């Protein structure tokens, strides 16, 4: 890695914060700041201008959603700052708020995902390069609650897998790897899905995420 990604961390649990720093440094990233609350994160980002901010949703003082508020605000203020929001539980409403109209450079993952180090790092890098990383849990919740279940049931099992992975923000290559099929096969599935669900075809992966999420959510 020529220029390592520069990362700021906001996480109030000392154990997790130290663990994350250890993991990221071990993987060759540069950790510019590791702080315990949203206020300190704002200061750190203003000063260090990192590429990515990893933000815990629930932090002091109110222990509700100050991390999320900070993430939305930081995104408005700093063009090009990628944000990975990181939480112990998934709220679909949070995902919608966070994505807004633009899913580029946004991630929302369960904290558990750090256990699979490579996947976590891959998601972090995807977000840093302007992609999207949504936790499979978000996609599962959306699919479960979607009023479009009838039209989703038209899809084949394989197509549903592809739809889920698309919604998580994966590229066709990654989807192909994950399902152990060729990229061409994935492309075919994607085309089928878009025509079956009558979705507008999007060129970029993060627009594709929004299109799928909107579809599931309405």
């Amino acid at each position: 890695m020529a220029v390592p990604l520069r990362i700021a961390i906001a996480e109030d649990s000392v154990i997790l914060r130290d663990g994350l720093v250890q993991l990221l440094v071990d993987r060759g990233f540069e950790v510019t700041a590791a702080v315990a609350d949203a206020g300190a994160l704002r200061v750190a980002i203003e000063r260090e201008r990192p590429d990515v901010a990893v933000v815990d949703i629930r932090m002091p003082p109110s222990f509700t959603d100050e991390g999320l508020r900070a993430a939305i605000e930081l995104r408005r203020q700093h063009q090009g700052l990628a944000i990975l929001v990181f939480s112990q539980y998934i709220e679909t409403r949070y995902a919608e708020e966070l994505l807004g109209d633009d899913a580029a450079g946004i991630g929302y993952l369960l904290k558990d995902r750090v256990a699979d180090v490579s996947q976590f790092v891959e998601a972090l890098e995807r977000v840093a390069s302007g992609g999207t990383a949504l936790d499979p849990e978000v996609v599962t919740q959306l699919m479960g609650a979607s009023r479009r279940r009838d039209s989703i049931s038209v899809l084949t099992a394989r197509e549903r897998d592809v739809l889920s992975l698309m919604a998580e923000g994966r590229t066709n290559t990654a989807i192909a790897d994950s399902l152990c099929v060729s990229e061409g096969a994935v492309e075919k599935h994607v085309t089928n899905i878009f025509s079956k669900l009558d979705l507008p075809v999007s060129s970029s992966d993060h627009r594709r995420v929004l299109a799928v999420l909107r579809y599931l959510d309405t």
Partner: protein
Amino acid sequence: MLITWGSEPDSRLEELARTVVETPFTRRTWAELLFMMAGMPVAFIGMAFVGITMAAGVVLAITFIGIALIGVAVRGARGIGGMQRRLAGALLDEAIDDPEPFAPRPGYLGWLQSALRDRTGWKAMAYLAVKVPLALVAFVTAFSLWWDAFRCLTYPLWGIGNRGSVAEWGAVRVLFQPGYLSPGNGGGPFVALATVITGAVFFFVAPWPVRFFDYLDRLLMRALLAPDAMTVRVRKLEQARAQTVDASAATLRRIERDLHDGTQAQLVALAMRLGMAKEKLADADHLDIDQVRDLVNDAHKGAKEAIVELRDLARGIHPPALDVGLEGALATLAARSTIPTELAVTIDERPSPAIEAIAYFCVAELMANVAQHAFASRAGVSCSQQGRWLRLVVRDDGVGGARAVSTGSSSSGLSGLADRVRTVDGNLEVTSPPRGPTVVTVDLPLRA
């Protein structure tokens, strides 16, 4: 000793005299008179309204209109009862709790049904029925005494030519034969003096009948205008239930917070270290065994910490020692205390689990207080069954001065305990004079 004995009757007489002399000049006397006067129109107009409506209702009872009129009468009586209560509150400082507000069911028929079943309204009606004759007697008595007092005291000021008979009205006419105090009987300075003295006597006597009748009225209002014992009880239970619900919600939130910040974070960190170690082991070419060993060591340490945290948390939710009974659980508590603690438990019958849990947490909290605040050298815990009650006593020989202070809506410490005990109709009492010793007594029902 002798002096006190001799002077006691004197001081009593003195006090009595002072009371008699001062009473006509106190605010209370005049407020009572005003209450009696103001109560008259309320009672009479109220009775007229209720009486006429009721009578019409009863006459027409076979028609719907009649029933509706009875409903209106009951509802009206409730309103008048409320006015009377406010009057008593303002003038007599007689604070009578408001009964449950009238909460009619929706719809016209619902209203009528609620009005007809309104115990408060019917009781207010009974109050009015007794109040009217009482007010009448009271008014005549009070008015004649005060009026005569006024007339007699001001007798010398009347114009010479206008001096009519004093014994024309009220108490004077009853007490004195016609002509006894009348100027027609010769008049002169003697009569004037006698009249003024009579007036002065009336002036000092007049407050007492008024006070007596107001006292009767107070009793009547307490009996008929206050919420009945059942309502008060229901209200208390509702409060206790609300407290219980709040407390259990707060407890759940605390447990969630502890799990989220503690164990869950520990386990995520643990999984992360193991994940890193696993990936390093998979990459056999660049394997740095020391690095992996450090990761596994950290993970191992984290796992042990998570176990300890989880155990403490579980014990805070429900102490496992309680499974074998309160006695064993209290023994564990006493043994764990940093201050030498004597324990005496005499229970014949096992209390219900909820009571055992409350008893346990009470003792735990009280002993923590002793350890933190009392500077005590010894402590004692006793737990005994007394009939259907469980009595816990925690005492220490410390500095004392413990108080149940309620801090806003969220209570903590002793007052939090008192709240918790009250949710099962129990009672917590603290005696803690400065310099100690402190004794906290908790009474809990055996079953809840």
